[in-house]
């Protein structure tokens, strides 16, 4: 992405706050003009103090009172300008983050599956933060800097045209120096951020899995590895920090040269009568003032470069194409007819996975899917839920192709429990009523009793109000909660992907019973390792390498003596 286009996009976000932007510029103008004018008034006041018995106190106090008034107005203007800038920056950042989260909800899962959570989080959080810092600095220093330059130039022109022109002509020198240094420090910055990225990855890996590190006594080795990368980072960081900090002194050096040049030329001009001594001292002090904002502006530019680099990463995420547009058609009453017709699908288009998949499911059937890992069981569920779209072929529910039904309507007709349990940080109640937020406590407790989770929920310190986070309950308990979540919704169809794998078998039997009740007359798809749980399925599909290699009931398949019967019997084999 080009820098200009990033700026253009950024301006779209800033544009929403154009009133604040204009206000900020006006306030910057007021405060700068007053701040530049106050010294003039002080000069006037001092001029009234000439010598002993020659002090005009009334006139002096008039100036001093004016000063007090202007100072207060300037201070108020500075404060309000800061508030306005704060407001603009933080709201722009809020807007970007909100948009990012909404966008995530609409991104195709293929994108989210392929990008690490850490990377996306760091775009939304860290990069946006750096952008925010850059914007804030830009708003506060850029405007007042520019206004100071303009106002000072006006004052200077009023004193001497030629010296002023000389100053203007010498100005680009300071920019050239700044540019020269920043292009040098840029490579170091890049190396720094690369190494920092590597280090963050190591931190996430080691600290994130600290329990494994401890279990293997890997602590010292982890420290050593960290030390290596930490030292490398130190090298690059020191250079990057050092090089970039040279910009300011270097431009200041150029300023000093300009200052000296003004003194030199001024000194030659005075005897010619085109300039007075007083005029020269005013020019000198203004020359100083005129250059200062340039220092600020160059530092703002460095900061902004960093901010823009981060903005690019955010915009890349925000511009990632969304899922195919949704149909508005709603499934009214779902009978549970599922038709899968010549479906092909693969994640990596160069390697085929599911090929020519066909299946007809009558309402109320229980379909079990078994097979070795990587055979396409979970992929099949991804397709049913339209987490992914088929490459070719059709999946129909009650005769309607699923890509002609709205995603919400389709997904509402399925209840899904996955092996990979996900619990949001929040109370037990919030987690259970996730699919039906308006349910009453009675409904929740009834569902929990059916799903056999009530036993442990009851014993939690605050019952339904216990706040859960990642590791506060066991894997099996999490799974029970996920099941409760579905029990509460009573969906017309059910998908269970290893839904009871972490639950002990006694509880599982009871849960199974509840599922059986729930599933009466409802279509369900069950993926399971424990073959005991799928024995009474109406149809068992045995999958391998994306294809159905056997199908039939438990008894039929056992009789066939194929892959399934081998799998089934292996669990009873005794260990010699």
């Amino acid at each position, binding site marked *: 992405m080009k820098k200009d286009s990033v700026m253009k996009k950024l301006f779209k976000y800033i544009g929403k706050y154009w009133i604040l932007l204009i206000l900020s510029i006006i306030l910057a103008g007021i405060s700068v003009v007053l701040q530049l004018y106050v010294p003039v008034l002080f000069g006037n006041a*001092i001029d*009234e*103090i000439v010598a*002993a018995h*020659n*002090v005009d106190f009334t006139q002096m106090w008039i100036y001093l009172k004016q*000063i007090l008034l202007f*100072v*207060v107005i300037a201070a*108020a203007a500075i404060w309000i300008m800061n*508030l306005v800038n704060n407001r603009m920056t*933080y709201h722009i950042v*809020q807007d970007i983050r*909100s948009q990012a*989260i909404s966008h995530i909800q609409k991104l195709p899962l293929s994108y*989210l599956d392929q990008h690490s959570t850490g990377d996306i989080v760091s775009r*939304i*959080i860290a990069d946006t*933060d750096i952008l925010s810092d850059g914007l804030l600095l830009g708003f506060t220093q850029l405007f007042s800097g520019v206004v100071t330059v303009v106002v000072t130039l006006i004052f200077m022109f009023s004193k001497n045209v030629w010296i002023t022109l000389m100053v203007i002509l010498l100005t680009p020198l300071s920019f050239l120096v700044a540019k020269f240094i920043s292009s040098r420090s840029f490579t170091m910055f890049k190396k720094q951020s690369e190494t920092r990225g590597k*280090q963050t*990855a190591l931190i996430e890996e080691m600290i994130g899995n600290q*329990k494994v*590190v401890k*279990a*293997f006594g890997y*602590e010292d080795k982890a420290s050593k590895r960290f030390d290596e990368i*930490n030292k490398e980072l*130190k090298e690059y*960081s020191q250079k990057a*920090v*050092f090089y970039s*900090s*040279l910009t300011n*002194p270097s431009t200041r*050096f150029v300023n*000093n040269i300009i200052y000296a040049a003004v003194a030199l030329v001024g000194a030659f001009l005075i*005897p010619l009568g085109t300039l007075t001594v007083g005029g020269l*001292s005013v020019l000198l002090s203004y020359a100083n003032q005129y250059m200062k904002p340039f220092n600020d502006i160059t530092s703002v530019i460095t900061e902004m470069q960093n901010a823009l680099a981060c903005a690019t990463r955010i915009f890349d995420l925000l511009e990632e194409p969304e899922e195919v547009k949704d149909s508005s058609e709603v499934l009214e009453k779902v009978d549970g007819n599922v038709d899968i017709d010549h479906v092909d699908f693969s994640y990596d288009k160069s390697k085929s996975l599911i090929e020519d998949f066909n299946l007809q499911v009558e309402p109320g059937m229980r379909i079990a899917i078994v097979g*070795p890992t990587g055979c396409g069981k979970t992929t099949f569920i991804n397709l049913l*839920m339209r*987490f992914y779209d088929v490459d070719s072929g059709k999946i129909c529910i009650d005769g309607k192709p699923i890509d002609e039904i709205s*995603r919400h309507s389709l*997904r*509402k007709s399925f209840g*899904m429990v*996955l092996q990979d349990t*996900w619990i949001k*940080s929040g109370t037990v109640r919030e987690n259970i009523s996730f*699919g039906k937020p308006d349910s009453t406590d009675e409904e929740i407790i009834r569902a929990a009793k059916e799903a056999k989770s009530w036993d442990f929920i009851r014993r939690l310190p605050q019952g339904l109000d216990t706040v859960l*986070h990642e590791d506060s309950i*066991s894997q*099996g*308990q999490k799974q*029970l909660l996920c099941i409760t979540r579905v029990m509460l919704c009573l969906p017309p169809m059910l998908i269970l992907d290893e839904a009871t794998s972490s639950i*002990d078998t*006694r509880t599982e039997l009871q849960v199974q019973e509840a599922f059986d009740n729930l599933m009466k007359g409802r279509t369900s798809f069950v993926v399971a*390792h*424990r073959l005991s749980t799928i024995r009474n399925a109406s149809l068992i599909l045995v999958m391998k390498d994306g294809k159905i290699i056997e199908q039939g009931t438990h008894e039929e398949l056992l009789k066939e003596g194929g892959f399934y019967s081998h799998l089934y019997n292996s*669990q009873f084999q005794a*260990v010699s």
Partner: protein
Amino acid sequence: MKKLWVYLKEYKMESILAPLFKLLEVVFDLLVPVVVAKIIDIGIANNDHGYIVKMFLVLILMAAVGLSCSFTAQYFAARASVGCATNLRQAVFDHIQGFSFTELDTIGTDTLITRMTDDINQVQNGINMGLRLLLRSPFIVIGSMIMAFTINFKCALVFVVAIPLLFVGVIFIMLVSIPLFKKVQAALDRVTGLTRENLTGVRVIRAFCREEESVNEFEKSNTELTRLNEFVGRISALLNPFTYVLINIATVILIAKAGLQVNLGTMHQGQVVALYNYMAQMIVELIKLASLIITLNKAMACADRVAGVLDIRTTMHYPETASAKADPSANEVDFDNVSFTYAGAGASSLSDISFSVKKGQTVGIIGGTGCGKSTLVSLISRFYDATSGTVKLNGRNVKELTNQEIHDKVGIVQQRSVLFKGSIRDNMKWGNENASDSEIWDALKVAQAKEVVEGKDGQLDFMLEQNGKNLSGGQRQRLTIARALVKKPEILILDDSLSALDFATDAALRKALAGLEGETTTFLVSQRVAGIRQADKILVLDNGELAGQGTHEELMKSCEVYREIYFSQFPEDRAKYERGEM
């Protein structure tokens, strides 16, 4: 907070030299007006072009010397700040390595990661800016005050009143805003957490059509963060106007007083100008200082969070040397009336567990969800200390063993299969750094992972992604088992680590484990009776209590809980049992 100074100490010289050179630069800056005055007073007055050019060259020379001083200062500041942050980062990392499971459970890894990355970066920025600029401003302020006294004592008193007032105001604003900055960081933590949640839970959120609610919930935290940011901004934005107004009021009083003095004839106009110049210089410096202080406030809030990590002391201590020799005749593992309660939990997870295991035995542990199976095995490797009772290895209390001894002895395969970025070989060497390729292949063979590795390009050199993302769940699990086997532990613990394997692989693996040479004591935690029925001893846990122990046959006779578990998995046998055929 104070603790963090230690890390700057190593860079004492740099930390002193950096501000020192900065001051030198300031001195050259301050001398410029003197030289210009000479140009006016001597050069112009005598129309001496040679003198003017000479003084011009002096100005250039001073600028050049100032530049080199500044470069030197920046160099030392960069060295000190980056060096200090590097040391600090290492210290925090090492400190975390010393945490026990209890600390890890209570702090949570997410916040540890932010503190190690974001917060320390902020501290580095703070030190760098501080070294470069923090001393410069007070130097100019105090210097101006001293110069004022040399000019006129009475007028200088204005400085004496104004400067402390200024510092009080600045410190007050700092004190108010630092805790607020911490709140902002905490709000940011929440927004980060929700972002992560939206990504990890994307399938569930979509399955339950909760996209809109998730966005709304995020929006709430996001708005709260903005509100806090604006609030802190409002207060720290006061700093700049406050100093500006205060200094100008002081200047007005100064001029008024000076007017009286001049009127009385005790002072000249030129001196008034000089006094005014010093005040003006202070204004410029103080405004710079104000924006610097905001950066420093942020850095300090972050430093506090980092120091918070360093303040946490580990609750687990290992002896330096083993106090007693292993007794070869003793049991391999003994539990004597062991109870355990997790920190902060109400109810105990294990109560009054006693059993003993002989060398070379295979122990199965079975029981309901959340009954304490994993807790029990994590006491063997001393991840946690028993709340009461003792755990013994070879007749010695685990608390008397060194960390190294326990690691050498016990190999554990945890429930969550975690692999690390790097080659398969690197991952396998976690168990034993010096393992040869053939030893690794042996372990892979036992773990039924030989075919998995053989199927990868480069075999042992195949690069795994973070968390082994480029492997399936079952493949990951087999590799984690192999990793523990490479260690050749005396005690091997498999904590429900066969759950992602299909039955055929599971059975083959258990068979291979049983055939391991040497006398490995094995603990198998499982949900499946089939997985443990051959064990020499089975422990049946029920809600943290030991409901029974013995062989499969014994338990079938004596243990109600075990029978129930068995029949839930082999329903056909229930009828047989009831008919008395078993």
